[in-house]
């Protein structure tokens, strides 16, 4: 029995151990379809993490900006209140000594004083009752008191507070006037000593893309132009601007662009690949790919295949370096700029449907041959900014961009994309 047992084991092992059978083509088709789907899902997931990080950064940035703006307003209100009610001991009642000290330390120059009819009238200072104004502070000896000159040329002690020094029951005075003068003086001082500062802009833009095609084969240019239609595209990013002089700034940042191109149905032909096999060549303005439909017999050189409409997506990261000239008027600033951009093509893919297969096979091309991953472009834009408050600006940004080097190599055409964009964003000023 044992011999028979081993005999049957050996018989089957020796006969079936190296048994081979060709699987039906449907297995490979199914495998390709599943792998295509997985590739597509992986492609979608590829930048998911970056998108999340970008959203998180934007949210945090927005939060920080809102927080900063809020803090600034509170501080401004608080300082205003404190300058009025500080040391009075009576809420809402101004203290003469503080007001006068603020004015005296503002370094009022004679020119400004003359312009605003403000003169020093220390001699007109009325006697101040120490016990009333302050119990532990004295008016500085070189203290100046502001008065307004009346039309008759006679200096008149116009400060209501000073007048009220004799009747403090009504301590309200025209504080706004004094405050405005102090601010004007501060602005004047700032203008004399410009300090560089940074601004950050988050923006998004609608773009209309197109391209310039160069080729020794005019027919190739015509046929590509005929079948490719640019669809609305988008870009967005973050700009960081360094204001180096009052009217000059340098800008850089990170820009993400998404370009969509629709491709009309076409007939494609089989060529021999460099690897030796024969496949249908699908040509676009950004490169080409070899397609091997899962169904049907393998093609021979010269065979043709009809494809349905296809979708071509290009995505890139760009880093610009732009010089800007700044013109400011009231709440508006006008910032034309010109510079260069380094562009990194992160993906160039095509989703095409094959018409001649029974089940309308969809082929997903996620890598185009002949597409250059890096190219340079010229960029020009005009930022129109509206000042919302001292730190926040609303920014409109018409722009133009043109590739300086082609995005293709070894393709039938050399492609130089260009685009017009209209963007909008928010700018935050760090100062």
């Amino acid at each position, binding site marked *: 029995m044992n011999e028979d047992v081993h005999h049957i*084991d050996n*018989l089957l092992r020796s*006969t*079936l151990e*190296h048994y*081979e059978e060709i699987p039906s083509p449907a297995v*490979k088709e199914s495998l390709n379809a599943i*792998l295509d789907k997985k590739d597509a899902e992986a492609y979608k997931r590829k930048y998911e993490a970056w998108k999340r990080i970008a959203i998180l950064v934007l949210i945090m940035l927005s939060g920080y900006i809102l927080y900063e703006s809020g803090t600034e307003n509170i501080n401004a209100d608080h300082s205003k209140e404190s300058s009025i009610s500080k040391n009075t001991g009576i809420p809402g009642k101004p203290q003469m000594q503080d007001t006068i000290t603020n004015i005296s330390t503002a370094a009022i120059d004679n020119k400004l004083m003359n312009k605003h009819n403000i003169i020093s009238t220390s001699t007109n200072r009325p006697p101040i009752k120490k016990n009333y104004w302050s119990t532990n502070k004295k008016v500085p000896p070189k203290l100046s008191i502001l008065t307004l000159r009346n039309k008759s040329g006679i200096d008149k002690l116009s400060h209501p507070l000073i007048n009220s020094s004799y009747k403090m029951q009504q301590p309200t005075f025209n504080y706004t006037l004094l405050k405005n003068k102090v601010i004007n003086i501060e602005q004047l001082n700032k203008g004399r000593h410009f300090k560089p500062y940074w601004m950050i802009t988050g923006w998004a833009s609608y773009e209309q893309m197109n391209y310039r095609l160069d080729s020794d084969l005019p027919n190739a240019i015509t046929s590509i132009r005929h079948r490719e239609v640019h669809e609305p595209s988008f870009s967005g990013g973050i700009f960081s601007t360094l204001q180096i002089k009052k009217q000059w700034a340098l800008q850089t940042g990170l820009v993400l662009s998404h370009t969509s191109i629709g491709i009309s149905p076409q007939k494609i032909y089989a060529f021999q690949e460099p690897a030796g096999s024969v496949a249908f060549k699908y040509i676009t303005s950004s490169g080409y790919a070899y397609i*091997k439909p899962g169904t049907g017999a393998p093609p021979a050189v010269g065979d043709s295949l009809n494809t349905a409409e296809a979708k071509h997506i290009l995505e890139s990261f760009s880093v610009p370096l732009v010089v800007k000239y700044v013109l400011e008027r009231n709440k508006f600033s006008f910032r034309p700029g010109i510079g260069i951009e380094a562009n990194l093509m992160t993906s160039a893919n095509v989703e095409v449907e094959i018409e001649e297969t029974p089940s309308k096979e969809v082929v997903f091309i996620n890598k185009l041959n002949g597409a250059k991953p890096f190219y340079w472009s010229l960029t020009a834009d005009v930022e129109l900014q509206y000042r919302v408050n001292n730190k926040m600006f609303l920014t409109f940004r018409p722009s133009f961009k043109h590739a300086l080097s082609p995005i293709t190599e070894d393709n039938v055409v050399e492609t130089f994309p260009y685009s017009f964009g209209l963007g909008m964003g928010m700018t935050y000023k760090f100062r």
Partner: protein
Amino acid sequence: MPENTSHLPVTEQLLIKGCIAGNRAFQSKLYDLYAPKMLGVCMRYSRNKQEAEEILLEGFLRVFTYIKKYRGSGSFEGWIRKIMVNCALFKYRSKVHLHPVIDLKIAGYEVAGEIDIASNLDAKELLILVQSLPVGYRIIFSLFVFEGYKHREIAKLLGISEGTSKSNLADARALLQKSLMIKEQLIANNGL
């Protein structure tokens, strides 16, 4: 790239590298290279070609997914083969109804005398005999005879006792012998 693939032929190394990079051309070449052999493996665990192709498809998907985990410690073909066997076991695990230990003599199997019909049956016919075995017998027989597993390993793999494994293998052999005898009879009758 796997830790040590220097012992593999250059073509295999390139294929593995290409597949790890997700290159579809390399994946296609890998499939073309190994699919026929692996279908032969899958056929021994399945009832028919359709089921075998289902296992093959699942197996290659796993190969492409986990190829980066191939350490290069054994042959690449052996690694793929192991994945195919695991896929087959996974497919049939829920369907396997393994018989408890039985005494062959009590069961009344007549063990044949000398069997010498190897020259009369081709591989396809023998494969059909294996495929005609009940699923539990077929899996244990294939694991023992073709993959070289011991009863202890089979028992651990399938979650059964060693005794059940031995018993089922004996049953499978008996059924195969019986089928072979019937085949022999038919051939002899046709010869007359």
